[in-house]
C-alpha cells in the first residue's frame, strides 16, 4: 500500500495567503481548450474569406486610383469595376456576408460563456471545483477574466482585418470622379477593432450570468442569443446615432449615396426659416413645383435640387466619418462597463449561492 509522503503541517494554515491567480491559467486551458480552439478555427476560416474578398477589392481600388488620365474610358471602366465590387452588398452591413458576420459575437460569446458556470452546475462538478483550496469566487473570476482576455484579443485581430477590408471605401481619393465611398458607420461598425471584442465580451458575460442563473447549458445559450439580439437591435436602430449630437448641414450632397462618407441620420426641409416637412416632400408640393422635371433627371438626390430653386432648404443631420473612432470608443466603453458589471454580478452570485 502506497503511503503519502508529505507530512501534515498543522500550524501552517490558520490564515492562509491566497493561492496565486496564475494557477488558474492551466486549469482554464484544460477545461475550455476545445471552446478556445473552436473560436480560433472559426475566426481563422472567416479571416481567410474576408482576406480573399478584401484582396480583390483592394486590387480593384489600386487599379482605379493609379489609372491616368482620369477621364479616359479605360480608367472610368476601372472605377466602374471597383464600384461594382464595393457595392455587391455581400459584405456591407446589410449584405448576406455582413449580416452573417454580425452574428459572430453572439455565437462566440454564447458558446464560450454559457458552459463556464452552467456546465459545472448542470453536471454537479461544482461540488469538486468549489471545495478546492483556491476558493470558489476567485476560481470563477480567474476563469472569466482569462477567457475574456483571450476572446478579446482574437476578435480584436479580426476587427483589424475588417477595417482593412473597408479601407478603400473611406473616400481618401475623392478627386477621382464617381469613385464609391461609404460611411464607416454602415460598414460592419460592430465588427471593428474596438467594437468586435466589446460585443463579444458583452455576449460572453451575458452568457456567464445566464448560465449561473439558469444552471443548464443549452437554455443558457438560447437565452444569451435572445438577449444579445434584442440589445444589438436596440443599439443599431436607436442608440448608436446619438452617441454625439449629430451635426446639421444644408448641403444636400452630404447624403449622396455612394458619394459621401457621412452617416445620414435625419432629413427635413424648411422654407423661410420655418419647418416645412420631414423626409420626402409631399406629393402635392412635388406636383405643384416639380412636375415638369423629366424622369431621367431625378437623380439620387430626389427633388431637393428642384425644390431648392423654389426657396426650400433641405437640412440633414449626420455623423461625419471623422467621428468613427470616438464612436468606437464610446460603444466599446459602455459595452465593456456592462461586461464588468455582469461579471461582478456573476461573482456575487457565486459567493452567495447555497448549493
Amino acid at each position: 500500500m502506497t503511503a503519502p509522503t508529505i507530512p501534515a503541517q498543522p500550524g501552517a494554515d490558520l490564515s492562509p495567503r491566497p493561492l496565486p491567480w496564475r494557477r488558474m491559467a492551466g486549469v482554464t486551458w484544460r477545461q475550455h481548450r476545445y471552446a478556445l480552439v473552436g473560436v480560433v478555427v472559426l475566426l481563422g476560416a472567416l479571416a481567410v474569406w474576408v482576406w480573399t474578398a478584401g484582396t480583390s477589392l483592394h486590387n480593384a481600388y489600386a487599379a482605379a486610383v493609379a489609372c491616368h488620365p482620369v477621364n479616359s474610358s479605360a480608367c472610368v471602366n476601372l472605377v466602374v469595376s471597383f464600384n461594382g465590387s464595393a457595392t455587391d452588398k455581400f459584405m456591407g452591413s446589410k449584405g448576406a456576408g455582413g449580416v452573417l458576420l454580425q452574428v459572430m459575437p453572439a455565437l462566440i460569446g454564447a458558446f464560450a460563456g454559457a458552459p463556464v458556470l452552467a456546465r459545472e452546475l448542470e453536471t454537479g462538478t461544482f461540488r469538486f471545483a468549489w471545495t478546492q483550496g483556491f476558493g470558489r469566487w476567485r476560481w470563477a473570476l480567474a476563469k472569466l477574466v482569462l477567457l475574456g482576455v483571450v476572446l478579446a484579443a482574437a476578435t480584436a485581430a479580426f476587427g483589424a482585418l475588417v477595417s482593412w477590408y473597408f479601407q478603400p471605401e473611406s473616400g481618401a481619393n475623392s478627386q477621382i470622379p464617381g469613385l464609391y465611398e461609404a460611411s464607416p458607420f454602415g460598414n460592419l461598425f460592430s465588427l471593428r477593432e474596438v467594437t468586435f471584442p466589446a460585443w463579444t465580451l458583452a455576449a460572453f458575460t451575458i452568457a456567464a450570468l445566464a448560465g449561473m442563473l439558469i444552471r443548464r447549458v443549452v437554455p443558457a445559450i438560447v437565452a444569451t442569443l435572445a438577449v444579445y439580439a434584442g440589445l444589438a437591435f436596440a443599439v443599431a436602430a436607436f442608440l448608436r446615432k446619438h452617441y454625439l449630437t449629430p451635426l446639421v448641414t444644408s448641403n444636400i450632397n452630404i447624403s449622396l449615396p455612394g458619394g459621401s462618407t457621412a452617416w445620414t441620420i435625419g432629413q427635413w426641409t424648411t422654407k423661410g426659416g420655418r419647418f416645412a416637412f420631414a423626409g420626402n416632400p409631399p406629393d402635392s408640393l412635388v406636383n405643384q413645383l416639380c412636375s415638369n422635371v423629366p424622369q431621367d433627371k431625378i437623380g439620387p438626390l430626389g427633388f431637393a435640387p428642384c425644390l431648392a430653386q423654389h426657396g426650400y432648404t433641405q437640412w440633414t443631420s449626420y455623423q461625419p466619418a471623422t467621428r468613427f473612432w470616438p464612436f468606437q470608443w464610446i460603444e466599446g466603453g459602455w459595452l465593456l462597463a456592462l461586461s464588468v458589471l455582469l461579471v461582478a454580478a456573476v461573482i456575487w452570485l457565486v459567493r452567495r449561492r447555497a448549493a
Partner: protein
Amino acid sequence: MNVVEASGLGKRYGRTWALRECTLEIPAGRVAALVGPNGAGKTTLLNLAVGLSTPSAGAVTVLGGRRAGSPAALDGIAFVAQDTPLYKTLSVADMIYITRTLNRRFDKSYAYARLEDLGIPPKRRAGKLSGGQQAQLALTLALARRPRLLVLDEPVAMLDPIARHDFMATVLAAASAYGVSVLLSSHVLTELERVADYLILLSRGQVRLAGAVDDLLATHGKASLEELALTYLRETPAEVTR
C-alpha cells in the same frame, strides 16, 4: 480540537427543513460515520460542513473554529461528493493537474503511485473509467491533498465488495498513520462496523444519537453498530449522548 462543531444548525429548502437543531461536536482523530436512511439529511449536513451551502439557522465551524467554506477551511478539508463528480471529458492526468494547481498542498508522487497500484491509466478520460475506478480516483485526489479532515458522501455506493474493502482500508490507513480525521456518510452499516469509531445517527433531519461507538454500545446495551442503528432509527427521538 473538534473537526466539526455545529450548534443549532438547520437548513431549509423552501418550506421543508432538511436539517434542524443539529448540535454536534466531532472530535479530531476519529473516523466518524454519519448514518441514516435516505432523505435523513446526511448530504445536507456534509454540504454545510464543507461550505457548499449556507445554514438557514445556527452555525457550523470546522477544524477548530474556522468558518465552514472559508479559505482556511477549504485548505484543510478534502471533500468527495456523492456520485464522485469528476470532469468526465478530461483525462486522469488532467484531473491530477487541476487538483494540484488549485490547492496549497498536493502529493503528486503519492497520487501517481496509488493510481498505478489501482491500475488506472493516467491518459484515460475520467468518463471512460468504471464507476469503481472513478470513486478510487476521487479518493486518491482527496488524499493527495493531505487534508486534516476527509469528508466522504456515500463513497462506497458504487464499489464492489473487494473494492469497498480496499477503499475503507485506505481510509483507515490514512486516518491512523497520518492523523487524517474522517467524516463519511453511508448506509452500508456492515462496512462501517470495522472502520468507524464515532457515530452520528440522523433521521428525518434530526440527530438521534452522537458519540464514540464504544461508549454508545456500552450505554445502550447493543452488540453491534447495526443493531444500535436499527433500534434508534425506528424509535422516536432519544436524547443525544456525548
